[in-house]
């Protein structure tokens, strides 16, 4: 009888996790999360189920996450398969990735304790990042054809920052790819759809999912070696 109930709960948690894009939070799932926290048997069952899915179930700060492992071939998200790639051309897609990295590094910077980031500030931040990259890669791999910093830089530099002469509001909310601001807005929109950041008018802030997962899983200090391995390849 007891086991029946636990299995039912495990099933319900797994189903809801898959249906809710891998995250349970809020009052609606308070009961289920409470059960997960209180019952070690339930946790054990979920652990083994998740390992069959090549995933990991983790409770961080009253939120339950279904985290796909890196080697998972069929569950999880691929940035390279995302809408972002559909919107951008190939080189632009790489530029988009750099913009994402700049946004994350600003929002996750513990030293700055940033509550809000102005979208217009990103213009200079991306500019600085590209300049740094150009400096660092000047002597290095010029022969790499697909990924060339000069190419990305020339795309970025060839555009105007924002449409001139309009009101401030329309300047910083343009989505035309003729302007740098357009690229940034497309990326911000994408991250917003993936529920990683919030946008209120012209300022963006990190949602709890981004901070919690980055802190506890992806960039956890204990995973230093794995992160290096993933990035160096």
């Amino acid at each position, binding site marked *: 009888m007891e086991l029946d109930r636990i299995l039912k709960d495990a099933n319900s948690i797994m189903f809801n996790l*898959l*249906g809710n*894009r*891998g995250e349970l939070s809020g009052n609606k799932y308070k009961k289920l999360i409470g059960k997960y926290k209180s019952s070690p048997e339930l946790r054990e069952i979920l652990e083994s189920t998740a390992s069959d899915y090549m995933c990991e179930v983790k409770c961080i700060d009253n939120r339950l996450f*279904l*985290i*796909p*492992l*890196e080697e*998972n*071939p*069929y*569950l*999880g*998200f*691929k*940035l*390279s398969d*995302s809408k972002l790639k559909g919107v951008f051309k190939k080189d632009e897609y*790489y530029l988009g*990735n*750099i913009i994402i*990295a*700049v946004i*994350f*590094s600003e929002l*996750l*910077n*513990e030293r700055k*304790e940033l509550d809000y980031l102005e979208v217009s500030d990103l213009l200079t931040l991306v500019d600085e*990042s590209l300049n*740094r*990259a150009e400096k*660092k*890669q000047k002597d*290095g*791999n010029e022969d*790499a054809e697909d*990924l*060339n*910093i000069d190419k*990305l830089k020339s795309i970025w530099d060839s555009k105007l920052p924002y449409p001139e002469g309009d009101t401030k509001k329309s300047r910083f909310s343009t989505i035309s790819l003729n302007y740098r601001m357009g690229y940034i807005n497309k990326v911000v929109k994408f991250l917003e759809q*993936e*529920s*990683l950041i919030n946008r209120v008018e012209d300022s963006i802030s990190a949602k709890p*999912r*981004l901070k919690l*997962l*980055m*802190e506890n*899983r*992806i*960039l*956890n*200090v204990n995973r*230093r070696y794995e*992160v290096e391995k*993933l*990035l160096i*390849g």
Partner: protein
Amino acid sequence: MLDNVLSLYDSRIKVLSLNYLVNKAKSKFTCFSDEESFSLSVQLLDFIMQQSFKAKHCFKEDMYKFMGELNKVVYKKELSSDELEEVVDDLINKLRSKGEVFHFETYNHEKGSNIEIPVRLIATNSVFKDEDDRYAITYSLTESGYRFLLGTKEYDDLLGIEVSRIIAQIKLENGDFEGTVGLVQDIKNAIHLQLRKVFECGQKLKKGLNNVKTKDYEYITKNTLEVIIKEKSEYQDLKRDVNSHIKTKEKLKTIRTDGDNSKLEKSITLLNRIGDDLSNIEKLVWDLIEAIQSLQVDYENAIMNALKVMSPKMLDFETNVLGKIEEDLSVIDRLDNLYKPLFPLSVSRIYSPLTPYFKQDKLIEEDTSSELEAFDSKTELEKEQEIALNKKIASSENFFADFFEELLKFKIIKEEFTLREFFNYLITEDKATYIKVTRDTELLREIVIFLSETDKINFTSVASSLKDVDVSGTEILDIHRVVLNIINRDSEVVEFLSELSLNIDLLINQNEDVETIKVKTEIDLENMSFAELSCADCKFY
């Protein structure tokens, strides 16, 4: 709404109207900016207060001296001593609003009309001056003036609590109940303020340990606790005094049957109010102690956590990821692996019957062949596909049979011929057959590829080329069935077929023989040796 918000407006505006008065007093000398005249006014008021603390008279001449020193050190304006004196006269005049009581006009919410609040900062007195043998005017601050200057709370809040309590005790003994009520209110406000401080400190602590200064924390917790615990017992004594006062007053009331009792009743209500306030204060003290204790626990926890985690919890994104991308752009291609847990799962990537097969990533590959064998029954789609395939094979066999038949028929007319001669004959003599023979261009192409137009047709080579013809993508043409097809037609060409089918059999058998190779080796058992094999030694059958 307005009632709630503006209920205490009067008392507030009373305090702040003094501020307005000081702000309004601007020097007529334009070399003093607004800020400078404001600070000069406060400095002059400070000087007056200082003199009264020293129990000295404050004459105009003293202020002139003070102003002279002040100008040398602070303002450094190029003004003569006469002009400086004028500055002081002007400012003091304005501060005391030319000797009159300044009326601050404002709206009184309870009365529903405008009222004038009398405001006075500086009081004057005429004193006989021995040195000059004449009367001179001295300046001092009014009570509200003191409050204005001391309202900046530069003295200790905790001291304020203690002092208010001591004065309240004295006033109570002297029978000044109205004054006691005000002082008890002051104590209540001061404790509220302390509570607020503790609360704010807790908020700062939540944001991070480094936001709280150790000095502030110790003041808020340690000193406050010391004072408040000492005061707590004093409040109980005070309350006891109040109660005894109430008792005596009530006794008096019962004894005195004649005369006016209104004074007694008034003081009893005041005493009751003091008693209520004191019990409120006791509650507040308990709240304060609790708040301080929980703050202490939080603070200790925060320190313990800070000691445990010396390094940050999270790797720095800027150096670890963005920095790597800047060094080497090819890192971008590998970001997918890092970000995998970050982005929400996309459900479309779960294996789904709704999305086409080729768009889905494969599940872990498993050997499913044994399971498939268990499924005997084919789906209807598969059945339909099989039927269609069979039809296609049959039609292609038919076509080749027709072609062969016509070819053999032509052989009766002409012993030896080329492909071109065959087609030319058909076009000129028998158009219906021509159309029949060339109806399937794809299959015809298979034949024409292997036969040149000008060479004489050799039936065996035609047959051998036909056996490789791809009929449906998976099936290869069975030449035997084509021959059988022709035999079943009972046509005149059957006699040629016996020869042809023999040839075909030979052709196929030969092919089978090629696959089996027999090798003879010579092994000498006596010498335990064997002859080395070379290509020349191999014999093929």
